[in-house]
């Protein structure tokens, strides 16, 4: 039984996911109130260099060929063994395609309490979760003895989870990973050939409010005038109004443009988490209560159809 905070590092094909750094930053806050260390748990194979920039007191490294790529079964076994042995105060998982496959299963397997959708921790160590599309916050004491927590972005900056000083790496014993019921066959790449929206400095992003495919042209015109690229939220991509390579959000890309200009995006958490690194967010929405206004620097409460064409003209004139 320790007061250490464990972070299950997420990485895919040699890339550490942003959420891992966000969790490292969160763990630092939690560790201060709990009085333990920040310990990153890295599962992989020949992957220890990934840990080089972790802002952690220690990295526990579980190396095994079966852990090279994520599969739920192998990760669950390895982690169950580690948590049972070390009994940390809390284990942080991403509320992601990886972490969500682990936390709930381990909660039952190890009979440990679980808090999900946690966005931040209070100074006195309570978890604060965000639910109902960002409309409700729920706060509770960190459950005992070992709290399993899944985390969403938004509460901490990923930079705070990075360090220039490489942490100490402690290899740990990996249990037998046999009788696995899940096997990775291969990866399917997203369709290539389109612009990489993660690298574009100006994004005009459209949401449900754009109403139909034809209206995408309005956004295209504005993007052309500003020298940017059009992206969209999940409903827009689901309707195939834009290709999936333009999806900004949890299941799409995280972006960090200079200007993120939203048209008819309400600001669901799945979308917001992917845009928090933008320099300036400007939001147009008819609903003054839309959560997007809480993270935008500038807001306009107006029907986008009344504004966009006028704006495009003015931008053209100004150039």
């Amino acid at each position, binding site marked *: 039984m320790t007061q250490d905070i464990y972070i299950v590092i997420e990485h895919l094909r040699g890339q550490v996911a942003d959420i891992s750094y966000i969790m490292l930053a969160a763990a630092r806050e939690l560790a201060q109130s709990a009085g333990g260390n920040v310990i990153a748990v890295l599962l992989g194979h020949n992957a220890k260099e990934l840990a080089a920039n972790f802002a952690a007191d220690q990295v526990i490294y579980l190396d095994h060929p079966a852990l090279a790529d994520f599969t739920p079964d192998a990760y669950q076994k390895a982690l169950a063994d580690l948590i049972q042995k070390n009994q940390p105060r809390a284990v942080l998982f991403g509320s992601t395609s990886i972490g969500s496959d682990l936390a709930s299963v381990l909660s*039952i397997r190890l009979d440990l309490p679980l*808090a999900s*959708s946690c966005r931040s921790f209070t100074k006195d160590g309570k978890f604060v979760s965000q639910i109902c599309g960002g409309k409700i916050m729920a706060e509770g004491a960190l459950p005992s003895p070992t709290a399993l927590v899944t985390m969403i972005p938004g509460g901490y900056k990923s930079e705070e989870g990075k360090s220039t000083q490489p942490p100490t790496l402690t290899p740990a014993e990996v249990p037998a990973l046999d009788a696995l019921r*899940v096997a990775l066959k291969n990866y399917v790449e997203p369709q290539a050939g389109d612009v990489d929206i993660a690298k574009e400095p100006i994004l005009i992003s459209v949401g449900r409010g754009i109403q139909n495919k034809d209206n995408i042209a309005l956004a295209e015109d504005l993007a052309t005038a500003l020298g940017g690229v059009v992206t969209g939220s999940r409903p827009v991509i689901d309707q195939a109004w834009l290709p999936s390579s333009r999806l900004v959000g949890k299941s799409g890309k995280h972006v960090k443009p200079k200007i993120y200009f939203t048209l008819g995006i309400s600001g669901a958490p799945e979308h917001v988490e992917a845009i928090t690194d933008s320099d*300036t967010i400007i939001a147009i929405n008819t609903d003054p209560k839309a959560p997007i206004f809480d993270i935008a620097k500038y807001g*306009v409460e107006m029907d986008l159809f009344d504004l966009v064409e006028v704006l495009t003209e003015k931008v053209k004139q100004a150039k």
Partner: protein
Amino acid sequence: MNIVVLAKLVPDLVEELTIDANGNALDSSFARLIINEFDDHAIEQGILLKERGGGSVTIIAPDAEGADDVLFTAAAKGADRLIKIKGDFSNVNNHALARAFAKVVSGIKPDLVLTGVQAHNDLDGALGPLLAELLEMPYIGYVSAVSINGDKVLIKKEYPGGLLAEMDVQLPAILGIQAAEEPPRYVAVSKVRQAMKTSSIEEQDASNLDPCGGSAIGRMFQPEASSHATMITGSPDEVAEKLVGVFKELGIV
């Protein structure tokens, strides 16, 4: 192929949500409930699998206002068997729900269980993986394609950025559906009415609703924006003018 789909109802976010008098839960008496949208995709995926390869689809939903509607709608889409778990599920956590489901599901001996990958009011993990571990079945979430291949299923799992992983899972298994291969279909109201006449809902009692494993919520509140955008007002012309000013400031015009 014996397919089971779990469907739960969640508060409809179209309505204003309110916190109950204790201040630590949603006021369920005011909330309008709607099927969890991911569960709707799970139902669609179940029906698609049946249409493609045969078998039967059983839909299980916990009792709540609107549960009958959800079940009959699924029947109209092609579900074969409808089960409603009776009990007081208002403000019950997923651990308790998973235990209630576990008893019913194990009685059916399914080959494949589908459920939505998450729900917007999840506070103690997702139903699918909790149930999977209770039933000692493998679980994969964020699934957007499923094909059955003997005693295995080949699935596509979504990762950020559009990357997909193809994984093989041994049956019986539980999958958390992110998106069905086709968007959930429309069911005409007349078809639902017909289903109400031709199909019946079996009721099973939830034995114990043991919430152990969830985490206690001390306080629930509506977020107050820590910061709020500077609102630009005026006629479209004036607003556009001011926005161009912002663009100039940022040096992109």
